[in-house]
């Protein structure tokens, strides 16, 4: 039966069902569960690069109240993304300062910490590389001398020495494009530092060992990844690991990887007790899996009419001591730096580079954020070089219906161009804020951005209960984005003719729900939503068949609405849904339905991409941002005067909740653009251990974002939805940087734009950025040539 769900029955400003407990302090996060359990502390390396000669645990074991020690031999398996290069606890070779070497469970946290401090670690120093330039120099020490022997978790990556992974795109004849007599060639270098996600709840886990199985209660976005990685690290079957997730106190991508959970599991197994492991704020900040620092050289050949006939770029992404997320993220350069615009020919090289620094990770829109900054600033420089207005260049060059992307993917529908039109309307509607600049330098910029929905497998079960309510069982988790408390109950309720508060949503339990890729990458509403919709439709069809028989009607003529089965167009003629459920139970038992979803797969041009995890994106998401700034010429302080967003959302299921996500995402982006700064010290340690050093936006720093939701762009998401929570941060760095650049009349080549950085720009003390570690000859940066 093909029975479409009417989107109008789903769309609403549904309030959050979890708000009351959250506002009254009753919500129990993982970090609130540590009462009556053992507490654990991690023994960390105090140097960035060294061989471990000896570890002596005797002084720790002598402390009263110490219950168990976890060490490297307890977790022999290496894990990672793409490459298994990461040990849980390192017993041989230290690769970053703060690396976990062992962990101790004790009666109290104070005892555990004292015992951790008492462990004697004897090391022999090894040479270290703290920057990507050092790591790529010909005589650099190799962080992973055994890199060739590591298990490959995915084929196709080009690797070697300190290059963990290289992903390349080659489409068309770039050399010929650059040799054309009618082109202007524009070359730029850019760089960005790291950004700390800083969710309020740190990474933490409470583990127990029950009936021979590990049960990990944890603050994560990816319960199935935690299950798989724990199994791999501990060398046990994944079926012996159960992961459950309560409310998560923020993630932003930091919790899109497994980190400390297996350590708690080892200690639980050894002690037979429940063990709580919670990062202190300092531990959390100093080992934060940040958005990576990155460096870029980009060159474009552009005609006087603004046609980009050739583009080549090399991006260096610092993965820190282990490959992790950056190995995957090399893929995304093709779709972000290689996105937005029609390119006649293109070659891109995206390299994840090992350094003796804390590993980096995923952060909301990941490398898309800085690649968009790089690309949009470069686009402004192109506009200047060919004498065209930057907005006009964008109008002409953005991807439209039938245009091909960097990897040869064919894009569907005109989206970016009409979004630029909508932004023009939004700008016209409100006056500019030039008067607020009040003698300061004023700048404004409109930028475009391309991101994607990270689809992949999800599953769902809907149980229809005898009382007429439904229970949705998935592996989703509520990280604050509202998917579990708003979008999913909305979708299931509309399909079954219930109100959203009659849909119970079970939070992730890997023993109860099927596999799922996790909550992140804008995928939850799309992937879990699609699986949930299918499950609900299967339940609906069973109920309608039963009811049709009872009413002597055709199932096609029936609808579910307001807890009843009705003959369409004849309200009151049917029956309560509970009556049909009772009949179903009498005939064959309780009604339930399963649904599933996976990436349908979109084609790239064969042979264009090498080393990519995703060659073409299933659901592109576009964003247009506009920003006005005032820059104080005496101090270099940047004030954002206004901020506007036109965001491609497919169908806005809950417009009010999407507005919240956009306001929050833009403000995180403003922090990135202006003052969130992570630096690596000479010893390889991050230098911002707390809120005093790492400056996130405060209430007084922000402006209300003016928002226009662009609906109707093609999407395979349920009811045409796209994820809306990840993308709001995408082009904030770009918009602010372009606006500041125009305000001060200088090239902005790096973020964040702290007052000293901006003042140096204004005063002409900033030289033109160059990256000697990236050859101006594109081919010379390829691994095959380099080794």
């Amino acid at each position, binding site marked *: 039966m093909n029975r479409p769900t009417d989107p109008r029955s789903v769309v609403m*400003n549904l*309030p*959050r069902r*979890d*708000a*009351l*407990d*959250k*506002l*009254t*302090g*009753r*919500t*129990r*996060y993982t*970090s*609130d569960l540590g*009462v009556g359990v053992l507490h654990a502390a991690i023994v960390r390396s105090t140097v960035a690069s060294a061989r471990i000669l000896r570890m002596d645990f005797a002084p720790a074991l002598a402390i009263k109240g110490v219950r168990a020690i976890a060490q490297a031999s307890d977790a022999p398996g290496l894990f990672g993304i793409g490459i298994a290069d990461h040990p849980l606890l390192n017993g041989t070779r230290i690769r970053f300062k703060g690396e976990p070497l062992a962990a101790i469970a004790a009666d109290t946290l104070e005892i555990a910490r004292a015992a951790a401090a008492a462990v004697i670690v004897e090391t022999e120093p090894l040479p270290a590389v703290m920057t990507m330039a050092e790591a790529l120099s010909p005589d650099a020490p190799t962080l992973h001398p055994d890199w060739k022997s590591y298990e490959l978790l995915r084929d196709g990556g080009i690797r070697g020495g300190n290059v963990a992974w290289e992903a390349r795109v080659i489409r068309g004849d770039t050399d010929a494009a650059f040799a054309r007599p009618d082109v202007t060639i524009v070359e730029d270098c850019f760089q960005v530092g790291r950004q700390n996600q*800083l*969710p*309020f*709840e740190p990474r933490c886990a409470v583990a127990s060992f029950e009936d021979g199985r590990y049960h990990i209660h944890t603050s994560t976005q990816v319960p199935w990844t935690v299950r798989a990685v724990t199994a791999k690290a501990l060398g046990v079957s994944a079926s012996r690991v159960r992961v459950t997730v309560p*409310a*998560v*106190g*923020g*993630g*932003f991508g930091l919790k899109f990887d497994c980190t400390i959970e297996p350590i708690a599991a080892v200690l639980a197994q050894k002690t037979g007790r429940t063990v709580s492991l919670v990062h*202190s*704020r300092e531990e959390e900040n100093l080992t934060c899996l940040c958005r990576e620092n990155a460096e870029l050289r980009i060159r474009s050949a552009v005609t006087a009419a603004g046609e980009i006939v050739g583009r080549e770029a090399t991006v260096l992404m610092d993965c820190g001591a282990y490959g992790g997320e950056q190995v995957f993220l090399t893929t995304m350069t093709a779709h972000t730096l290689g996105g937005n615009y029609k390119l006649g020919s293109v070659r891109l090289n995206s390299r994840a580079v090992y350094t003796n620094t804390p590993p980096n990770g995923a952060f909301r829109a990941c490398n898309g954020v800085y690649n968009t900054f790089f690309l949009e600033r470069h686009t402004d420089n192109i506009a200047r070089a060919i004498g065209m207005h930057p907005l006009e260049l964008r109008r002409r060059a953005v991807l439209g219906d039938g245009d091909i992307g960097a990897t040869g993917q064919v894009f569907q529908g005109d989206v970016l161009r009409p979004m630029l039109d909508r932004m023009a309307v939004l700008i016209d509607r409100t006056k500019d804020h030039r008067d607020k600049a009040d003698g300061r330098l004023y700048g404004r910029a409109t930028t475009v951005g391309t991101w994607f929905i990270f689809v992949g497998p999800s599953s769902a079960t809907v149980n229809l209960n005898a009382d007429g309510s439904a229970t949705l069982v998935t592996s989703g988790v509520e*990280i*604050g*984005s*509202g998917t579990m408390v708003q979008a999913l109950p909305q979708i299931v309720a509309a399909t079954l003719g219930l109100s959203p508060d009659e849909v119970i949503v079970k939070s992730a339990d890997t023993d109860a729900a099927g596999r799922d890729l996790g909550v992140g990458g804008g995928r939850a509403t799309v992937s879990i939503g699609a699986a949930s919709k299918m499950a609900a439709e299967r339940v609906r069809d069973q109920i309608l068949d039963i009811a049709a028989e009872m009413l002597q009607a055709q199932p096609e003529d029936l609808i579910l609405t307001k807890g009843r089965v009705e003959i369409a167009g004849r309200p009151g003629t049917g029956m309560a849904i509970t009556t049909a459920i009772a009949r179903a139970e009498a005939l064959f038992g309780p009604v339930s339905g399963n649904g599933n979803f996976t990436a349908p797969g979109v084609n790239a041009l064969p042979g264009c991409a090498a080393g990519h995890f995703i060659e073409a994106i299933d659901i592109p998401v576009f964003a247009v941002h506009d920003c006005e700034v005032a820059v104080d010429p005496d101090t270099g302080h940047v004030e954002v005067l206004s901020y506007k967003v036109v965001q491609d959302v497919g169908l806005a299921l809950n417009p*009010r*909740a999407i*507005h*919240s996500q956009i*306001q*929050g*995402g*833009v*403000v*995180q982006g403003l922090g990135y653009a202006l003052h969130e700064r992570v630096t690596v010290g000479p010893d390889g340690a991050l230098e911002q251990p*707390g*809120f*005093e050093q790492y400056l*996130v*936006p*405060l*209430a*007084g720093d*922000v*402006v*209300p*974002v003016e928002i226009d939701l662009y609906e109707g762009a093609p999407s395979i998401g349920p009811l045409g939805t796209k994820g809306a929570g990840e993308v709001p941060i995408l082009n904030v760095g770009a918009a602010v940087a372009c606006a500041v650049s125009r305000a001060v009349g200088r090239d902005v080549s790096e973020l964040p734009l702290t007052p000293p950085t901006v003042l140096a720009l204004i005063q002409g003390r900033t030289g033109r950025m160059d990256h000697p570690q990236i050859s101006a000859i594109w081919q010379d940066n390829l691994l095959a040539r380099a080794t």
Partner: protein
Amino acid sequence: MPIELTLNGESIALDIDPRTPLLDVLRDRHGLTGAKAVCREGFCGACTVHIDGQAVPSCLRPIGLLQGCNVVTVEGLTAPGTLNRVQQAFIDHDVVQCGMCFPGMVMTLTTFLDGTPNPNRDEVKSALVGNICRCTGYERIIDAVLSIRSEGVA
């Protein structure tokens, strides 16, 4: 000598190290986890409670200095099953996200509105500088607070 104080309306006596932060007393000894241990340095405001009617971070208050004080946490702010006007406005405006900072925000804004019943936007922003939120970008929280004011005026 035990430290005696009032916690959510009940008299308690504590015979513990006087340097123990109030935050740890609340969470570890009384199971009051509404105050969140986020920065433990007084920057974030997530552990804000009321001490003698003032909203202050509990992480920086050694218990030994609280002899005779009246401490109210978010759990004791209202009668069970009821919400105050700040909490109700936050629900009505759907401003909660991950939720970790909200108990602290509620405590700060509750005393703020008691002292400043009709604030303007800038005054609300100033009141919130000690309460960091990583999810929401603040502005819609401020809209919710201002709705209380306008409702009060109307």
